[in-house]
């Protein structure tokens, strides 16, 4: 089944993927930010579904989750906001969420809605690969979605191979084993990990996330991987000023 994620991966290098939290900074910013990201040159977008207790996120994204929930964001409202998105945005859209809001909505219903509005994939950081394979993979594939799984320098080779085998898009490469704050050894850690992965000859391309904050760090990771994902740095930038569209445009200028 064709999927926009695969199409982009096949047609481009140095893929710039941007994460933002739905309903942040204002409730109705979701669609505006999506449209502006496409206009200003992003290649792929991760739509963050806010959760009250995200454990895999640092303080910036946590805060954006809290604000979005206070704004009234919910899974149902997000799908309502995304209806018609395919008339305005053609980039691959990946829904990134903690597992709990998805299973309360209904895992299958969530996937069905993703297909309906035209989302292409899922990133569920707290859904480990074994649980994914045994409980959820069939459903994800039934709705033509791609599930993207994280790997880190501390993931074993066996685990990385298992993830590669059950992935059909890209693998989310966490740049370093120590994930937040300023990592002094960012480039050495990352390069060592990238070289280890190159030697493994995986079938899926790698897109790097965590610790990428600007053009310079983006260029660094794309030397060794298919693309880079910017999360916290964009979430911080989008809330600067009163106009999320202008803030998005300003942030993206560096990458033009």
């Amino acid at each position, binding site marked *: 089944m064709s999927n926009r994620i695969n199409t982009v991966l096949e047609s481009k290098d140095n893929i710039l993927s941007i994460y933002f939290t739905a309903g942040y900074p204002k409730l109705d910013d979701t669609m505006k930010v999506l449209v502006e990201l496409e206009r200003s040159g992003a290649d792929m977008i991760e739509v963050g579904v806010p959760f009250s*207790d995200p454990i895999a996120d640092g303080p910036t994204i946590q805060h954006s989750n809290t604000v979005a929930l206070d704004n009234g964001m919910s899974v149902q409202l997000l799908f309502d906001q995304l209806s018609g998105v395919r008339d305005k945005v053609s980039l691959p859209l990946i829904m990134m969420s903690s597992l709990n809001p998805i299973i*309360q909505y209904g895992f299958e219903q969530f996937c069905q809605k993703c297909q309906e509005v035209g989302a292409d994939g899922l990133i569920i950081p707290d859904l480990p690969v074994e649980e994914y394979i045994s409980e959820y993979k069939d459903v994800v594939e039934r709705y033509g979605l791609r599930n993207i799984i994280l790997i880190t320098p501390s993931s074993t080779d066996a685990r990385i191979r298992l993830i590669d085998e059950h992935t059909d898009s890209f693998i989310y490469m966490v740049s370093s084993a120590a994930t937040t704050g300023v990592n002094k050894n960012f480039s050495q850690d990352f390069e060592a990990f990238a070289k280890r992965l190159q030697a493994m000859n995986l079938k899926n391309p790698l897109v790097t996330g965590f610790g990428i904050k600007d053009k310079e760090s983006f260029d660094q990771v794309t030397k060794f991987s298919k693309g880079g994902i910017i999360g916290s740095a964009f979430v911080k930038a989008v809330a600067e000023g009163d106009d999320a569209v202008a803030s998005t445009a300003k942030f993206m200028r560096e990458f033009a």
Partner: protein
Amino acid sequence: MKTSLNPDERGYYGSFGGAFIPEMMQANVAELQEKYLDIIGTQEFKDEFDVLLRDYVGRPSPLYLATRLSEKYETNVYLKREDLNHTGAHKINNSLGQIILAKKLGKKRIIAETGAGQHGVATATACALMGLECTVFMGELDVKRQAPNVGRMKMLGAQVVPVSSGSKTLKDATNEAMRYWIANPFDTHYIIGSVVGPHPYPDMVAKFQSVISEEIRKQLKEKTGSELPDVVIACVGGGSNATGAFYHFLEEEKVRLIAAEAAGKGLESGFTAAATFKGVSGILHGSKTLFMQTDDGQVVEPHSISAGLDYPGIGPALAHWFETGRVEYQAITDEDAMQSGLELCKLEGIIPAVESSHALAVLDKTKFGKDEHVVVNLSGRGDKDLETYLKYL
């Protein structure tokens, strides 16, 4: 459904449990999953743990026949005196077990979350004893209402990190400890204080706390001629003292097990922490379990007068025992708990932790036979709660 005492190989108790963790935590958790049973099963480990429990903690903790309390409730009430342990609660059993394990795994640093501060104090104590660096995450609200324990942790050399996200209580301290472990995975062991979190934590903590029911059996046999009480009562926040008190009775079907949850200001007040009454199944802190949440899957902020019970969920084993009906659950309000705590002070000269007062309140809500033997797990002492009690005098 059959009731399981131990989890299956994937960490499930019936439909609850598992290990729903981000890949960044995987290596550390997998290491524990692979090694914990082997390590804690060795004679060397057992000997080290037993000596510390005896000579350092002061175990066995007494099983005390509370005669005036028994008279009032027309039954035989035995108090399992975990409040007499070093550091004042059952939490030290688990902290010592895990720190020995952490040392055997070669870890250099310890992190922990704490609600009432009892687990934080116990872990800071264990770290001082073993010479390991200790960082404790504690909700800002709890830092305020449990100030004496914050002081203790600092005296013991731990760094206390106040957590200002969410409800600023135990669940947020747990989130923050997990985030810190994700960001700082090397040489660090996370000592979770309750039977929550990803597999193998619920089972590991249960096994370290099971010394409580192991001792109750022996002590009861000496006192009554039978190892088995008719009833065991314990309070439940995450559920570590209850699991420890129930563990060796779980497969004895004749023993009635009662868990006291914190109803807060009342089950329908919107200010409660009663997870089996108000919770539904979902994923929180790395396992599938019952917790209070909105229809949209957002965690509902709990309320209890007791910082140690102020948690929106319960451990997966306790959720399973609820599902199978093996454990009965009662919801005890702030008010009822406080009155029962004050009653114990006056009748028996024992000041219980506010957490344990929830278990005591079950005596007033339930009719027991005059020949029955009822064990209440007195999980901690109330020194830390004086300010709270004084408001109810």
